[in-house]
């Protein structure tokens, strides 16, 4: 039982990060029907933005919640700008073309960001500063042998706060109403006087900021950051978005948590049923295939009739 609770805590922790990234995928897909392959790389950019921000402001030497807060907000802003730039200069010019063109464009942007970072700062992992002090990985006993670390608590609290904030923006503000209108029908929204280009930019900005938060938070848990860290995490987050029902915001959160938990359980319990822990990375894809074959609209998504 103790191990089960422990695995669940660890799994949901990784899942919370996947959920933050999945939100960006789901929002962009909801509006543009585009799998934003570069989103995983924006997550990486966010982590590095935090890293360089901490170094240049000298915050690495002063670990505190305040430093973490500054780095978090700073990297979110930087990533938001990066996301808006990507949308403006890469996706907007090809938006009128077929979906295959935009998909290839997304892959191209992803490769460009990765290779640019590898060429500029090298492929070797760097150590992200630990803002929570030397005690960050020291676990608090919950009950029995199950425990939760300071870093894990911070990840939970920050990601939940961001998700609530997003929910509030999307459902309670005027901008959020416009976003929902655009995702419902872009052309009608345009006819209703909504500046759709601005709303799409904003969506990219918000999604990228959430991914950057995911990057900085991951780095508090696992401080090794490298330019290719976004590929696999990004793909898994996308799977999370599909699992929850792409275009559906609560679905992305649910999907993220489920993927994180499934992954940890395979590592923890897989050997009992003959699945080696090396299959960890395959779990997300196996789930993806099952979901698409059984219920393509995802857990919370509504079935969409294809238009002719």
């Amino acid at each position, binding site marked *: 039982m103790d191990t089960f609770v422990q695995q669940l805590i660890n799994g949901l922790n990784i899942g919370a990060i996947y959920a933050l990234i999945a939100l960006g995928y789901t929002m962009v897909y909801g509006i*543009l029907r585009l799998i934003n392959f570069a989103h995983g790389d924006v997550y990486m950019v966010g982590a590095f933005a935090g890293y360089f921000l901490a170094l240049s402001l000298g915050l690495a030497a002063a670990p505190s919640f305040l430093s973490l807060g500054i780095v978090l907000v700073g990297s979110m802003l930087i990533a938001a700008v990066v996301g808006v730039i990507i949308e403006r200069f890469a996706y907007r010019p*090809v938006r009128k073309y*077929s979906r295959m063109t935009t*998909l*290839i464009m997304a*892959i*191209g942007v992803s490769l*460009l960001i990765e290779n640019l970072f590898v060429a500029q700062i090298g492929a070797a992992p760097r150590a992200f500063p630990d803002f929570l002090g030397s005690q960050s990985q020291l676990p608090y006993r919950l009950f029995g042998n199950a425990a939760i670390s300071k870093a894990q608590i911070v990840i939970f609290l920050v990601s939940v706060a961001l998700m609530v904030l997003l929910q509030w923006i999307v459902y309670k503000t005027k901008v959020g109403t416009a976003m929902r209108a655009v995702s419902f029908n872009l052309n009608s929204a345009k006819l209703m006087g909504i500046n759709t280009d601005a709303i799409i930019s904003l969506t990219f900005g918000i999604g990228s900021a959430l991914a950057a938060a995911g990057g900085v938070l991951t780095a508090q848990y696992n401080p090794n950051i490298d330019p290719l860290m976004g590929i696999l995490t990004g793909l898994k987050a996308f799977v999370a978005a599909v699992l929850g029902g792409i275009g559906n915001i609560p679905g992305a959160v649910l999907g993220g948590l489920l993927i994180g938990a499934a992954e940890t359980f395979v590592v923890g319990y897989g050997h009992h049923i003959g699945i080696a822990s090396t299959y960890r*990375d395959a779990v997300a894809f196996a789930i993806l295939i099952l979901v698409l*074959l059984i219920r393509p609209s995802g857990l919370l998504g509504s079935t969409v009739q294809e238009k002719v």
Partner: protein
Amino acid sequence: MPTFIKRILGLVIVVFLLVAVNAWMGREGLFGFGLPYYYAEILNLTGISIILAVSLNLITGFTGQFSIGHAGFMAVGAYASVFMTVYYSDSAEQWLTSLLGATLAQSLVFLGVIIVGALVAALAGLVVGIPSLRLRGDYLAIVTLGFAEIIRIVILNIDRVGGATGFRGRVPPWDGRLIIPAYANFIWIGGFAIITIVVVYNIVNSDVGRALISIREDELASEAMGVNTTRYKVIAFVISSSFAGIAGALFGHFRQFLHTNDFQFIRSIEIIIMIVLGGMGSITGAVLGAIVITILPELLRKLPGDLYGYRLVIYSALLILIMLTRPQGVMGAKEFGISWLKRAQRRPEGDKPIGEKGVPIAQQSTSPNLDQPKEIEHR
């Protein structure tokens, strides 16, 4: 000249060229001129790229089904054939050598394992294709990606083929060949590249090809016209993956070393870039793309100092640039050939209008509509 004489003549010329180029690459060279090993390797890898690009073009360019998992099928073919070579071909080769001599025996064994690789990859294509081809567009792309990753991770967990250390030859309990024999040379690689091109060309210009193109143009309309779309999509998928398996088998016996890192997501993307660059729905375009994408990173190696580190940046910037300026690729859906040159000479202002006599329809309206703005679908 009757067609069959033309064909035999063509075959003789092709075989002669392959043998000559292969001899040129060899240790002794041709007439005292040898090709340095570095260039010979690039030429061989280009041949393998051509097989991959042309076969992917059948499913993505002509049938319009976006697959990001070609490297997975290549991996299946590579590992299956090399597995057969290492563990099961030794005694067969000895027996055949006593009967036919070493060269012929080796060729027969190699042909056998290539066929095994192609069949296993085709089977993988069938297993993946039947469920996933129900899905469309982005979802199909992401499922093929998922399958390719799963294939890679499963291979990584098979100790018999080396697992994470890579497959160089027999592993404990030491019962196979010590190393993978270097069966593949330019005769094999170039030969299979040409076979791939010929087969895909003939498929595209047959009634099956018409069905495939109709699926790409409009799946619903095609289904309404009585085309069994699922069946044709699966056929295209299986043929495409079996050629990827052949490419993998050639790759394994050329490199004499296999590692799952060679078959990652990025490898599939590379093959897609080849056909995107060349033009989807053009065989010559795919060949052109394969040549450029295989040689370009090597050329960029020659860049001075600092710029060398940026070669992959240039490579990806190029992809973005093509998508921005010419999303249908360099060739679009056109084929480059002698008739194209003749036509260009005769009518410098452009192509013939659709349906005009003497121009096969396949060369005209086969563009995947990449160049025409399309409305985004909305709920």
